[in-house]
């Protein structure tokens, strides 16, 4: 398999597949679909996969898209999972149906802001990149149901995101520090790089983070420093639950990334890695408190291990 970076740029206006995984968001679905409908980018196909919603989401989407409204799109594909399979499986399923050279996902309760696809595709073209994302606008529709603690992570979201993106020496290092791309819906990527990476991992929280980190191996992402994705905070997503998975998932994401960039020299010459940033990379990893993951992937073992002599471990 030979990876051809930004091969999609050969097309004048590549087909963009917008994958909409739906789960019980009937009340938000029209706004979501309409935000794609009203994008100024022409060449869009819409892939709607209903993950066995218990509300009328599926009926709504299929009926609406059967009306002339659906003709705005180059192609429309709507299907429904027989049973609930979870976000990553639904997204992977949707992407397998996609015919576009570029792919983007939108959560069925979120919205694209005007000009999103055009701006990001242009930025990716300019940077010859296979991955792009933008700032995210967070809209609080909790009507007071959220506690101050719930809301704190979302306060001044796009400003923080902007500053965080500028904080590190490259976007890649910023992504290693935290998931600057924020959400699966906020990433535009080529089908080519998606195939290289092998899809989204079956993780509950961090599959998008894993995806962008893995993509760093191939290319540096293009970032549009304007809010072009609207993330809706509503009571349905108030209790995330299963937060204990976050710790496992963080370790998985970090170690997979380390393994990737240690075992092979990244194709992206800016990729945070021991080979592209000798010295600096280790220092950064140390500052971030991730040395124990890095050391394990480097085959150095942990301080507590007894299989190596003390001066080795």
């Amino acid at each position, binding site marked *: 398999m030979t990876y051809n970076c930004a091969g999609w740029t050969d097309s004048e206006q590549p087909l963009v597949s917008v994958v909409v995984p739906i789960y019980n968001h009937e009340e938000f679905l029209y706004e979501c679909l309409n935000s794609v409908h009203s994008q100024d980018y022409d060449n869009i196909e819409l892939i709607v996969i209903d993950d066995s919603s218990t509300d009328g989401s599926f009926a709504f989407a299929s009926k609406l898209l059967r009306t002339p409204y659906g003709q705005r799109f180059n192609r429309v594909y709507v299907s429904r999972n027989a049973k609930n399979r979870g976000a990553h499986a639904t997204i992977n399923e949707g992407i397998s149906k996609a015919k576009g050279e570029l792919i983007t996902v939108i959560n069925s309760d979120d919205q694209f802001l005007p000009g999103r696809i055009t701006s990001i595709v242009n930025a990716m073209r300019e940077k010859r990149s296979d991955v792009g994302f933008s700032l995210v606008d967070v809209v609080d529709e909790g009507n007071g149901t959220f506690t101050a603690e719930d809301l704190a992570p979302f306060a001044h979201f796009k400003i923080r995101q902007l500053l965080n993106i500028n904080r590190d020496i490259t976007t890649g290092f910023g992504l290693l520090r935290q998931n600057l791309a924020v959400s699966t819906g906020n990433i535009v990527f080529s089908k080519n790089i998606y195939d290289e990476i092998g899809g989204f991992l079956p993780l509950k929280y961090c599959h998008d983070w894993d995806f962008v980190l893995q993509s760093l191996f191939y290319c540096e992402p293009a970032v549009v420093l304007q809010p072009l994705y609207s993330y809706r905070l509503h009571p349905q997503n108030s209790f995330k639950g299963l937060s204990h998975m976050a710790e*496992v998932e963080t370790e998985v994401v970090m170690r997979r990334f380390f393994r990737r960039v240690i075992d092979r020299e990244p194709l992206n010459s800016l990729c945070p890695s021991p080979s592209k940033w000798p010295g600096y990379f280790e220092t950064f990893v140390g500052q971030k408190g991730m040395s124990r993951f890095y050391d394990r992937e480097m085959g150095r073992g942990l301080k507590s291990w007894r299989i190596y002599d003390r001066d*080795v471990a």
Partner: protein
Amino acid sequence: MTARINIGSETSDRQTRGAVSDDSPCLKTRYKYSNEEADCAVLPHLAIRDVSYRAATKDCIVRGCRPNVSGRNDDWGYDEVGETRADATAHSDAKQISAEETQGSKEKTSHGKANPGARAIRLPSSEPESPLKNLKDLYAAPAWRGCIDTFDNWDIRGWALSTDNVMGSVGLDIFLCGIHVTSTTTRYNRPDIDKIVGLPIRAGFRINASAISTEAAANIFTQLKKIADTPQIIGDILTIKIADTDIILPFTGKLLAEKIEVSKILPVLDAIIASQVRNEYISVRDQLISLPVPEEDDTSEVKPIAFYLPQFHPFPENDEWWGEGFTEWTNVVGAKPFFPTHHQPHIPADFGYYDLRVEDVQQKQIDLAKRYGIKGFCYYYYWFSGKKLMTMPIDRHVEKNLDLDFCLCWANENWSRRWDGSESDVLIAQRHVEEDDVEFINSCIEYFKSDKYITVDGAPLLLVYRISLLQNPEATVARWRKIVKSHGFPDLHVSMVESFGLTDPNAYGCDSSCQFPPHGVVAPEVNHKIKDLDPAYRGKIYDYKEVVRSEIARPAAEYIQFRCAMPSWDNTSRKGKDGNVFAHSSPELFEAWMSYLCAQARVNLPSSSRFVFINAWNEWAEGAHLEPDAKNAHAFLNSVRRSLSHDRGLVASLDSLPDDEEIGAVTVGDIKSLVQKLANANQQLQGLIRNHGGSVADRASPFVAVDKSWFEVETITAGDRVWLDNINGRPGHDTKIEFFSRQQTLTLRGWIHSPAMLLSPSLPVFVSLSPTDRSGFSYFAKIYDRERREDIINSLNLSESSVWCGFSIKAALNGVEPGRYSLQFLLSKAGDIKDLVPVPTYIELVVS
């Protein structure tokens, strides 16, 4: 028999309950529910939600309520019998379920029969009887009494009894969201019930969240999460059935009236699931981490191949010659050092003293080898005139199609007691007659056919350890080619191992040769330089450094030669004081050697056969192993990986060019010295960083222009102010104006005085630079370091909400347009994601 239960109506008895409060003041505090609303209020008709009851064919009505003084509600479950405190008041206050005899039920079951459970009962027309009387009159229908009276964050309590035998415990099945969670029995004291019935019957039951298995918790969690946004009635979540019946216990009126906030009860389930995840952490993690990553194979890259000894498991011949259970480990463990720096014994680390009969070991070896860039194993193939030994790992590799390429090296010498192929003390011999050689190649065909077998342009790569032992090597090889071709291969690639002084493969009809250090290496014996060498030692000690030096200096061969390096070598574990040692080996020297060989392979070998061999993956008894040991861990493997890196290749290719060769306007020598300088500088800088012991601060984060439309600023609260303990190291309290160049970094440390604000570290605080003469944007930098300042809140008598008022920040000004700015801080407001509250510093910054 199935039944549907309706909760009958019940009248409250406020007067009686009032008496409890008035007459027994002590109970008011002790009885948790003494102030609650009427428990026996009219209960709504309750449709049972559980699907399993939908098919109800009988109406079963249990009218009930919780006794509203349930006796020390917090601890009744643990009451000692002797401690039962029910008194007259409780008695008079107690209520109980009552059930009316079904009118017109077709299936009546009378009391006192063996199976009283399946009573079908129906709501009485009117005139509910006193529940007290009903509990007293145990002869009245139905056969069961009981009630659920507590549901407090999964703490479920209630009571039940059978009228047939009030002293007998009642079995109960607990369902949550229709999922059977556990079974229990009544066994706790209920003084209130005891008092009414007049017997110590222990009618109470109690279940808490610990009864929920992790699997059930996950299911319930999923179910509840779907309905978490609206308050639910208890009946939709909890069902308790009397065992072996379809009788469902009713709830108290209070429980029924309360709506349950599902999101508040989810965390307990979450914690149950979490405990399992913690227990499963390692396996969950490993499963996810080891998900396959696509490999992009560059076929023209250098492919390191490691010799692999398929011993390390007992087999009958070795048992016979060396004793039951003999393996190479038997020698390895017994090794002793003969001088102070002699690294013996070698103690295997990651795989331990493994046994290759365990399939997992081989898989793990392959996983490890691949991670470090090794592209293949070269298995020694022990074939003696039709007799195969130790082929089990090779056969498994083919059978399981293990995910690594491999090839064979025919170990075609006698197997002697001395491990050196000599003629003395032969254990199993080679004959090398023509028929044998034909039979040998036929035995290889099944391996060649594996799609993991290494080929050179389609021709299987076969190494022969001592080609000179064949009777007529040239003819044999020609015969082999014919046979291999007859099996559909384009050819056979025979590589002669350069052992025992063999050098020219063409002389033997071979396609190539393969080096095999320490055979053929040049190095001086250094026994005399070794300090404190054991006088009994009779072997030879060579300097590994010299080996590396001479191997790098070795001129390119005039035939196709696969180069080979060894990480270290020492066979004293087999031969004791007669063994030879290559002293001073190290991962660094090995890396230098490997790097050179890789570079040579790129230059000298065609892309289809850029092999570099390594002796060996696991020759533990010869001290030659990439497999991790306790001393070197993965260091030698890391050397392999690094030697394959692009940079290494670049430097090595550069090294192979003469200094005076010109590249454009510069010479190779210039580039070499530049690379060397950069490498030196980088090494020094890394040393500096390490010497700081990790105390190197983050790089300064830059000020970034933020559009005014992105935030809303409230008005300044009088009295709020940021106090700067220092600005770029100078005291800042009296500063009014500061001058900076854009090349500078603004370093601030201080504290925020804004008593009305919650200064939680989870709420972001920005430093902003607002142009004094323009508007439309400000520069923002985020404060990443917040500090607790007990000293401030104590001395100013501020509340705990201000304790995180301390901060420090390093912000770069390189993105800031020259100009005059007011420096202020912007705080986020708890519970709001848009507004910013400004706090002034009363300092102006002039950036030039």
